[in-house]
């Protein structure tokens, strides 16, 4: 019965209801959008750091990352041997063998890092195939094709199809040397990759280093990068003692720090946004309830209990809040969708930024995250209730005569 009254009240004063509703909806939608863009930036940062080179998880000898010791190698089948095969969280597994050496030219040489990979598997873990500016990954797993960075290509003055000589110290003490043919060139924007990195077939590197059947690490990607640490904890007990899986936080401690700082500033901004939105809603709502004080006074004079008045207002608030929520969430979702698919491209003004081991692309885009919807929704409801509650209380406590007199 009260419910019907609440609805009727809202319907009766359409203009006021619509005004209040619109304010709430727009605020909520914009808030959701802002949060989506923030999450987008954050994901971009993380993705660039992990998906260009490191992966989300890396399996290797315990201190391999510190020293990159050539002799800390593992059996190439270590992943399938030790890791449980029912892992749906892991979306890509790439074994790698790393060699540091020189690309030699006539009178000079250029120090490089050659990463031996299986092209098909590597492309499931890193995304250099989306950053190609010429050619592509070596097609032949057993050949000598190489994918090199743009900065390196420029320094060496090579193009796709050209030959290069790679010289390194092999694991048996001899001078490892062989020819590579450039099959493709990538440009990530990160000078560390673009100026130093060469991707070559795993078999070729195993042969040049005299390490048949050996690798240094297994890089893996997860469906949800944020679950990297718990996944590593889950898998580590399965591995032999001197081998461990590190997550991206361990590999890139600077990135972890940046994210911590970023979280702080995000919290500040988000609080501000919530406050602004809350204030806007409070404003509108508060006023509309206040202005009905006279009306409530009359109702009370006619015999309605104060308790009923309060409930009535709260109900109206709830209904309004729920409707606003529904519409606001939908609008917010729609805008987030747009920003996710299309986004705003800033490439004209800014070039990619390398930042704590990752590279951020110059664009604004959004991602969908449950938290970005439920939290604002909850807050919206809360603020609405609060906004209606206070004046409702006040109205309920008034002397009917005074209330009626209020203008």
């Amino acid at each position, binding site marked *: 019965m009260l419910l019907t009254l609440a609805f009727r009240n809202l319907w009766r004063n359409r*203009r006021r209801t619509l005004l209040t509703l619109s304010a709430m909806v727009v*605020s909520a939608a914009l808030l959701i959008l802002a949060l989506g863009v923030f999450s987008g930036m954050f994901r971009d940062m993380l993705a660039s750091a992990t998906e260009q080179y490191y992966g989300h998880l890396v399996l290797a000898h315990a201190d391999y990352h510190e020293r990159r010791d050539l002799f800390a190698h593992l059996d190439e089948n270590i992943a399938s041997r030790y890791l449980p095969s029912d892992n749906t969280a892991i979306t890509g597994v790439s074994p790698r063998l790393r060699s540091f050496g020189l690309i030699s030219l006539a009178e000079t040489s250029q120090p490089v890092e050659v990463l031996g990979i299986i092209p098909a598997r590597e492309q499931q873990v890193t995304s250099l195939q989306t950053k190609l500016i010429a050619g592509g990954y070596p097609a032949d797993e057993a050949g000598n094709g190489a994918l090199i960075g743009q900065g390196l290509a420029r320094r060496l003055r090579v193009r796709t199809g050209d030959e290069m000589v790679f010289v390194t110290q092999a694991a048996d003490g001899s001078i490892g040397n062989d020819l590579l043919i450039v099959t493709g060139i990538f440009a990530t924007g990160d000078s560390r990759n673009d100026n130093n990195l060469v991707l070559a077939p795993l078999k070729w590197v195993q042969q040049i280093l005299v390490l048949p059947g050996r690798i240094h690490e297994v890089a893996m990607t997860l469906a949800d990068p944020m679950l990297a640490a718990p996944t590593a904890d889950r898998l580590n007990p399965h591995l032999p003692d001197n081998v461990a899986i590190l997550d991206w936080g361990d590999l890139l401690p600077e990135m972890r720090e940046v994210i*911590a700082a970023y979280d702080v500033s995000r919290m500040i*901004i988000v609080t501000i946004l919530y406050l*602004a939105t809350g204030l806007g809603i409070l404003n509108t709502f508060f006023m509309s309830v206040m202005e009905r004080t006279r009306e409530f006074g009359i109702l009370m004079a006619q015999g309605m209990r104060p308790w009923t008045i309060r409930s009535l207002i709260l109900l109206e608030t709830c209904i309004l809040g729920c409707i606003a929520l529904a519409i606001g969430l939908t609008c917010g979702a729609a805008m987030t969708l747009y920003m996710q698919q299309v986004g705003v491209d800033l490439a004209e003004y800014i070039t*990619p930024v*390398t930042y*704590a081991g990752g590279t951020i692309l110059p664009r604004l885009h959004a991602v969908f995250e449950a938290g970005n919807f439920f939290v604002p929704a909850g807050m919206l409801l809360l603020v609405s209730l609060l906004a209606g509650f206070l004046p409702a209380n006040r109205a309920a406590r008034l002397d009917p005569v005074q209330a009626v007199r209020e203008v």
Partner: protein
Amino acid sequence: MDLFKLAWKNIWRNRRRTIITLTAIAFSIMLVQAVHNLSYGVYAGMVDSGVRAGSGHIAVYRNNYLESRDEILHFRDGSLVDDIAMIDGVEQVLPRLYIPALAQSSRESRGVLLIGVDPARERQINPFLKALPADGMIRSADSRDAVVGSRLLNELQIRPGQKFVVTAQHEDGTLHSELLRVRGVVSSGMKDIDSSLILVGRGRAALLTGNSGSVHELAVILSDARLEKTVHRQIAAKLPADQDILAVSWEKAMPNLANAIKLDYASQKFIFIIILLIVTIGVINTLLMSVMERMREFGVILAIGSKPMTLRTLIMLEAVIMGLLAAAIGTILGSLATWYLVAVGIDLAELVPDTLEFGGVVFDPVMRASWDPAWMIRIAVYVVCLTLAAAAYPAIKAGRITPVEGMRHH
């Protein structure tokens, strides 16, 4: 004038509503201004550390040394260092010679990039050298002292005071070696720096390659970052015209830092736009409501002979006054907040581990604001304009009332 007084009185008829609205707008202005000033201060701080640890506000190079890093692109600096140092606004000029070399101890060897510097000048400016004790710095440009990163020292298995040998390719094609002794150690906490930094006097470094009197880079540090454009022009004028030596701004020399700031700023602007939009919605709402409930009153006013235009103007005036009031209050609050953030700032030290990197530069854990009055005033003006814009629809509505409709309204 009467209209003005009327508008003023109208605003205060519903004191509660007006105060709530004013608060909302003022608060948003305060937030936007304070956050902007905070970022302004933090960015300025980052730029300052960045240029001091890197290539200065303005850097002088030969040809495209910046991109190619080809050791061949060195140039004789002659009196350039002193000439540039004399320009108003220049705090210091740091000459640098970069030499790829081999560092050897009795146990280990490593490829390194040796940096030949002017010790006295470098000591004043370079933030990585700040922690060095008084006797920890290179004594002269010709001495055999070296300042080495802590990780590199470990890898070479030597300690401060011990000797090591550097070998590099001389201009004549042969290899030259020099004896150096570790004088000071740099332990910045940044892995990259600590495992690669070697500083020597430029005189000693030049002996390795046969490039005495030459440099690869002149890093110019300004006392005030805002003087960059004028000083740049003056520097360009002093450079010898016949050689391909040019001056480059830090934004081009350290694009990472510049772009990191731009990106952060762009996302901030996005957020501000959203905040202001939210506030505007609230304002429109308020104004509409106030117009709606005065329909009857307006009807009466029109009936007794006032023009619709007057009504519209009245509404706009009410909006403008509210806007101005809110802007004033908001700016005062914003100023107070800024004052606090300048004097005290936000200390991130507890929330974040020791060294933070952003765009390749170490982050000072205390975030401090910096006054940007021009921007603050602009925001205040925008808000007033927004308020006016928000009043447009309600004003039009008010103007369209016919006296009869209005008086019948409730």
